[in-house]
């Protein structure tokens, strides 16, 4: 059942607005399982999200402090710190207002706070132009740009540490640098599959090891004494929701997200798909969607390309790219 068949989202403790069910079933769920926590504004049932007063205060309080830091960051022209602040704002949003996040936002938030602290912390006492995170981010840029190996990177870091004054806070090796940067990333999922494209070992099938019809194992036969199971193929899936949310985290891109509505359209002249008939038609038949100009219109592009130059035609990869 989905919402076109007349189902509604079940706000019970177990379903958490994820399943569409019939009214009677939902009544049963609510009686037996109870109402889900923190569902104060019924945004999945037609109520528009209006932050209540306490929330507004919290948001204003947190963002004003963040924007202060942000301005300070602009003054120092430190792009890496801005990046952290942008990332941190998301975690703040998660902690204070977002009730549908499934991960534990507190540990995330703690990590982001750590990163922010790191960013503000000078590399050593009395150092004015280098923060800890700035150096770390530069290491991350230099390494792939010049194709350094991890060992050579470790050596350079070690050497730099020996030059710097005592008590400096440079990370000891590349591994530590990497683990410091990881919380900033958005992550991806790896989904196993057999090379015949029959099925994905995903969601309810994630625990299966054999194909349902043909009985193929999704893992390669073990060779030697190794214990790890290796799948034939791994699909990399980059979830889109956090990426779209990230676009609204940065002041610059957040403004661009509503450009399609705010730009001056001249009658009879098309400069953007939003002036086209398809876009207007879509908005007119989905008024709920078009009411919020920040809702995102996406395009999807696929195409195979050869990884190893044009001669290795035997191996091609298929990226699926979304465009806003």
């Amino acid at each position, binding site marked *: 059942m989905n919402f076109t068949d007349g189902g509604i989202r079940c706000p019970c403790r177990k379903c958490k607005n994820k399943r569409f069910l019939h009214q009677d079933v939902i009544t049963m769920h609510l009686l037996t399982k109870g109402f889900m926590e923190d569902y104060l504004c019924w945004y999945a049932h037609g109520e528009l999200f209006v932050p209540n007063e306490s929330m507004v205060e919290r*948001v204003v309080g947190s963002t004003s402090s963040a924007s202060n830091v942000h301005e300070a960051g602009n003054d120092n022209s430190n792009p890496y710190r801005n990046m952290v602040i942008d990332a941190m704002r998301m975690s703040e949003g998660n902690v204070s207002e977002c009730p549908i996040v499934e991960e534990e936002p507190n540990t995330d938030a703690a990590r982001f706070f750590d990163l922010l602290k790191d960013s503000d912390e000078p590399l050593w006492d009395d150092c004015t132009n280098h923060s800890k995170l700035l150096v770390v981010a530069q290491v991350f840029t230099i390494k792939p740009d010049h194709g350094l190996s991890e060992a050579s990177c470790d050596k350079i870091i070690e050497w730099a540490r020996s030059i710097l004054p005592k008590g400096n806070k440079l990370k000891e090796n590349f591994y530590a640098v990497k683990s410091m940067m990881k919380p900033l990333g958005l992550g991806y999922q790896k989904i196993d599959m057999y090379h015949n494209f029959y*099925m994905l070992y995903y969601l309810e099938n994630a625990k299966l090891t054999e194909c349902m019809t043909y009985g193929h194992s999704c893992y390669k036969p073990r060779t030697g004494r190794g214990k790890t199971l290796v799948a034939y193929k791994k699909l990399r899936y980059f979830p889109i929701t956090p990426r779209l949310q990230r676009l609204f985290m940065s002041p610059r891109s957040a403004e661009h997200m509503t450009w399609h509505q705010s730009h001056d359209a001249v009658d*009879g002249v*098309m400069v953007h798909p939003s002036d086209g008939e398809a876009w207007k038609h*879509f908005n007119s038949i989905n008024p709920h969607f078009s009411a919020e100009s920040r809702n995102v219109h996406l395009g*999807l592009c696929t195409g195979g390309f050869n990884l190893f130059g044009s001669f290795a035609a035997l191996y091609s*990869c298929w990226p699926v790219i979304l465009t806003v």
Partner: protein
Amino acid sequence: MFLSMFIPSPSSPGRNIDVCLRPLIDELMHMWSSGALTYDISRKHNFVMRAALMWTINNFPTYGMVSGWSTHGKLACPYCMENNKAFTLTNGGKASFFYYHRRFLPPNHRYRKNRKDFFVGRVEKDVAPPCLSGEELHDVVLEYGDIVFGLQSGKQKFSGFGLTHNWVKRSIFWELPYWKTNLLCYNLDVMHIEKNVFENIFNTVIDVKGKTKDNIKARLDLALFYNRKNMELVCDGSRVAKPRASFVLEKNAQLLVYKWLKSLRFPDGHASNISRLVNTEECKLYGMKSHDCHVFMQTLIPLAFHDLLPKGIWDALTEISFFFRDICSNKLNVDHIERFETNIIETICKLEMIFPPSFFNSMEHIPVHLPFEVNVGGPVQYRWMYPFERLDITVAM
């Protein structure tokens, strides 16, 4: 623009791409029906963000994988669908869309009654095939059942495939509740179409060996459909001679074109250095990228063949060059688009009078539908594959 999925494979997923798209579609469904709570930094408050997929952008073979209408064979065109009158050439063995375009002309157009220059003795009375809307397509697609995915099941076909329809599957995108109401679901990629049309024209006019569409088999087919005695093969005892066609440049004219290309200089950032790709000794162009084809098609074709080709042929080639230039402009006047549509049909009819049937593969037919897409979807800059192909390079790195 961001990467959403990476499908590894030694081989192309083919129609099984639906299996891989499953997580993405699930997430899109969720983003459509309930959305995600997002913090907007520019307005400093939270809102529920929802997202909708407007359309897909693919090159022609992938179009078939994504839409479920196979883009191979005689029914390749996803707009004309089964009303297509393409046929397989007797000698060439390929599908040809030749003698098909006169039906798109207005009812009393003079070309419709022309018995001499088009298909021998045929007056065109048919009208253009209807274009199905999303709802109608959805109904058609629903009639075909589910298929079992997987490379083993590749031979499983719906009955009548290739004869009455070209459906290979019910595309996963129909699961999106708003998909059938979209006016434009799948975009034809102008970049690849332009490149293919350019290559066909250039290789045929310059007579590049092995690549020209005007080969021996084309001349054999020509005798079946046209009344052009001066182009048919001449048997002289045991030798067979292929007389030079009017649209093919003479040897010294070809050399002139290559020498001119060798001396070309472009403004910075306009195109790659095309003169570097020219080999005047072998009369060949090496390593033309899609963008070089784009520049060549839009600006160089009228200049390159001026005074070298007969007037009528040069006119037709210039018209198709101007058509692509108009359609690719970043500011489009809505009133002009209707004119593009009538013009391109007339231009393709002119090409039909010039080139042999084997020239008209699906890529020469598709431009007929481009003005419709431009009218509905807006400028092509947002709907073609240049930015994505560039991103592919970074992904590959």
